[in-house]
């Protein structure tokens, strides 16, 4: 949008997205991972408190989920991988280091909606600081919760473009069932890296502003747009923006400086000696790939190509399973409009799907039935289409259920 106003500058925008996984236990110990609204420091043990002598044992389910997310984001998987220590001091970090992945993340070089994903890696969450008056209290319930970090290339050129991407990530995470990806509860956290440059300048700018702790898509968009204008004004008045971390003030719609980075932190990364390196097999990765559910991208393709919806509508509808199911009951432009704009849905008669019709169609299409039995979801849509041909307007989810029941008999 700002590009329309100002052709002299080009936005350089990238994201770091943190997803807290909804595993039963934490990343390196047996404590419950779900810490939302729990009494402080009730879900802790020697490991997540970093007590002397304690050792981390990695949660294999979290690792699998991280790899599956990487696969869903089109990443390559490193068959050999490891954990590393990131050393720094902060009161929310009881060991004095965070266990993360440095040079060999589980997943790398993915692509989503035309944007390059640098890496997807696994790490542990920190404890939560609560400021009360002059005191700061520490709640370790969150310490050691599995956290996946997705890092994109800075190849976004507008905030809208960015939001579309972030919503898609959220939809994928939800489709995988690995996190609620709820921004208000902090299970999905966004960090935007923003700078601007002349369009013909070949390299990235030599500064970047991180905007952190923004808990909705709407606000991150506002923050990005505000930040771009602020930086343009600075650069046009001959100043270079200071490399810093900024927060977002919801009341004013402005970003505010939180921490100026005077020099690069030296985290003294080195391989975590308490956890042996991990070795996956190709077969293992392929079997995980087969477990991937129908992903929003596939649903979107269906919505765009089969039902001729706009990409914006497709992203919104595919990102909400209830909405998608609702849409399939009456797949029409009017329904999509109604759902997206939350207008009352004009009800249309839905033909009853009867068992007999389904039986007939299944009998007439043995190849599709065989395909479906071997796990090819495309065959299901073909069969639903055949039922639709016979009956006209049908309840798609009901039809699907009847077909699946028949197949599994």
């Amino acid at each position, binding site marked *: 949008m700002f590009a329309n106003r100002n052709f002299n500058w080009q936005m350089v925008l990238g994201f770091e997205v943190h997803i807290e996984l909804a595993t039963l236990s934490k990343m390196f110990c047996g404590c419950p991972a779900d810490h939302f609204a729990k009494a402080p420091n009730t879900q802790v043990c020697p490991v997540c408190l970093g007590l*002397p*002598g304690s050792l*981390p*044992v*990695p949660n294999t389910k979290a690792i699998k989920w991280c790899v599956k997310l990487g696969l869903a984001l089109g990443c390559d998987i490193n068959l050999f991988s490891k954990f590393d220590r990131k050393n720094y*001091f902060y009161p929310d970090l009881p060991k*004095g280091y965070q266990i993360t992945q440095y040079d060999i993340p589980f997943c790398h070089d993915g692509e989503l909606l035309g944007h390059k994903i640098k890496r997807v890696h696994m790490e542990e969450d920190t404890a939560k600081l609560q400021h009360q008056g002059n005191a700061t209290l520490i709640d370790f319930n969150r310490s050691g919760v599995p956290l996946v970090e997705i890092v994109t290339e800075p190849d976004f050129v507008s905030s809208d473009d960015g939001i579309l991407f972030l919503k898609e990530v959220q939809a994928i995470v939800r489709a995988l069932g690995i996190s609620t990806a709820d921004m208000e509860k902090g299970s999905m956290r966004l960090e935007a890296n923003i700078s601007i440059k002349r369009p013909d300048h070949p390299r990235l700018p030599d500064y970047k502003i991180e905007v952190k702790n923004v808990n909705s898509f709407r606000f991150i968009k506002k923050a990005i747009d505000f930040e771009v204008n602020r930086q343009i004004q600075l650069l046009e008045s001959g100043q270079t923006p200071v490399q810093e971390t900024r927060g977002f003030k919801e009341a004013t719609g402005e970003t505010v400086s939180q921490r100026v980075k005077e020099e690069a932190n030296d985290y*003294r990364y080195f391989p975590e000696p308490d956890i*042996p390196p991990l070795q996956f097999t190709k077969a293992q990765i392929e079997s995980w790939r087969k477990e991937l559910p129908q992903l929003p991208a596939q649903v979107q393709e269906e919505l765009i190509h089969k039902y001729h919806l706009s990409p914006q509508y497709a992203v919104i509808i595919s990102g909400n399973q209830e909405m998608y199911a609702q849409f399939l009951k009456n797949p029409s432009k009017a329904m999509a409009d109604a759902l997206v704009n939350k207008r009352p849905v004009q009800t249309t008669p839905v033909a009853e799907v009867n068992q007999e019709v389904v039986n007939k169609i299944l009998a007439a299409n043995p190849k599709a039935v065989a395909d479906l039995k071997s796990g090819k979801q495309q065959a299901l849509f073909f069969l639903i289409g055949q039922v639709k041909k016979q009956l006209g307007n049908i309840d798609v989810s009901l039809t699907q259920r009847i077909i699946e029941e028949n197949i599994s008999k």
Partner: protein
Amino acid sequence: MLIDETIASLANKLKKKEISPVDIAKECLKQIEKQNPKINAFITQVDSKAVLDQAKKIKLTTPLSGIPYVLKDVYVTKDLRTTAASNVLSDYIPQYDATVVHKVNSAGSILLGKMNMDAWGHGGSTENTDFGPAKNPWDITRVAGGSGGGPAAAIVSRMCSFAIGEDTGGSIRNPAGWCGITGLKVTYGRVSRYGSIAYASSFDSVGPTAKTAEDCALILQHIAGQDPHDATSSPLPVGDYLSRLEEGIQGKVIGVPKEFMGEGLDPKVKKLILVAAQKFTDLGAKIEEVSLPTSKYAISVYYLLAPSETSSNLARYDGIRYGNGRDKFTPETMRRIMIGTYALSAGYYDAYYKKAQQARTLIIKDYQKVFTKCDLILSPISPTPPTKLGELINDPVKNMLADIYTVTTNTAGIPALALPCGFTRSGLPIGMQLQGPMFSEEVLLQAGYAYQQVTDWHVRKPQL
């Protein structure tokens, strides 16, 4: 004394009800009262009444039941002060028991106390401790070795039957050698490290210290095995250390690396190692000279990697959580933290940490190659007899070089058995070590057992 006997012998008498656990416990408590003030082996003693109460109630379920033992003060013990010999943890009471503590306690052994050591394992003489140096029971003007000087001194002066030691660069073997007892550094991963306050995570190993190889076999049988709390513990089945102990070493090839017998080795020590080699020949083994060319880099590798890991492991003692601040670290510990921090820093990582890791791989390969030619390696433990108090702690470089024959073992992750092989003319004990391939504890213990059947160095005790 009852406590002169092996664990098996005591267990047998307990079973036959010839003696009771209280008899043994009383003897140990009396000995502690009498000898510890001279030796300073303990940092924290378990209350005598609690020890006797436990001895009265103990059920005899294993050969370790009713046997009094001590812990190097690096193992966390629930509700019992654990200091790692540092004032940083001078009043730290842990919330849980280390896995090895849990195992030994479950077997019915009776804990007498937490033992003196070099703080965090940083040293080879138990002088880098905030609780006063432990003294050598054979000559109290000399050090007991380190870092586990307290446990070794307590065993040889008969204050307990055995100890759980911890060896990062020689911390079980060095004091075993200088106090005249037997100690086993196990293969990395053979015994769980959970609850062992980390010095250098990829080097630390948990092992038994006792009077004999037989005792060590018995203890190892109870503490070895995979632990769900330690991802680096090995899933390999635990060996048959006890039942195969008497298999002997007939036909085994024992290599003596020329690099461990050359310059810098005290001639008195060298002579005793050669005499021991002859003993092994008499027992049916074949002695051969071998070479470990990369071992000359081991000290450099160890003193880059271990401090790197320790700089990270000790970061949690930041003054927020454990009462005392970083100003309580000793100069030797600060030196290691700073060396490690430097080696991991951007711009130095490749030249130091990474280079050292590459050299570590070469050392491992060197050992693998040698073990295609021999079954075991015989070498000295320390280049000299026990040093005078103050000699090592005031000379940081000399302090490092005291570890020259022991750090290669931890760098390679292999096991090693330390056992006494004689005395100097002035009556100071000298030890030797046998190293073996990964998970060769059975063979090491068989060799140690065979040797101790035909020698009596291990039964000698100091006149205090």
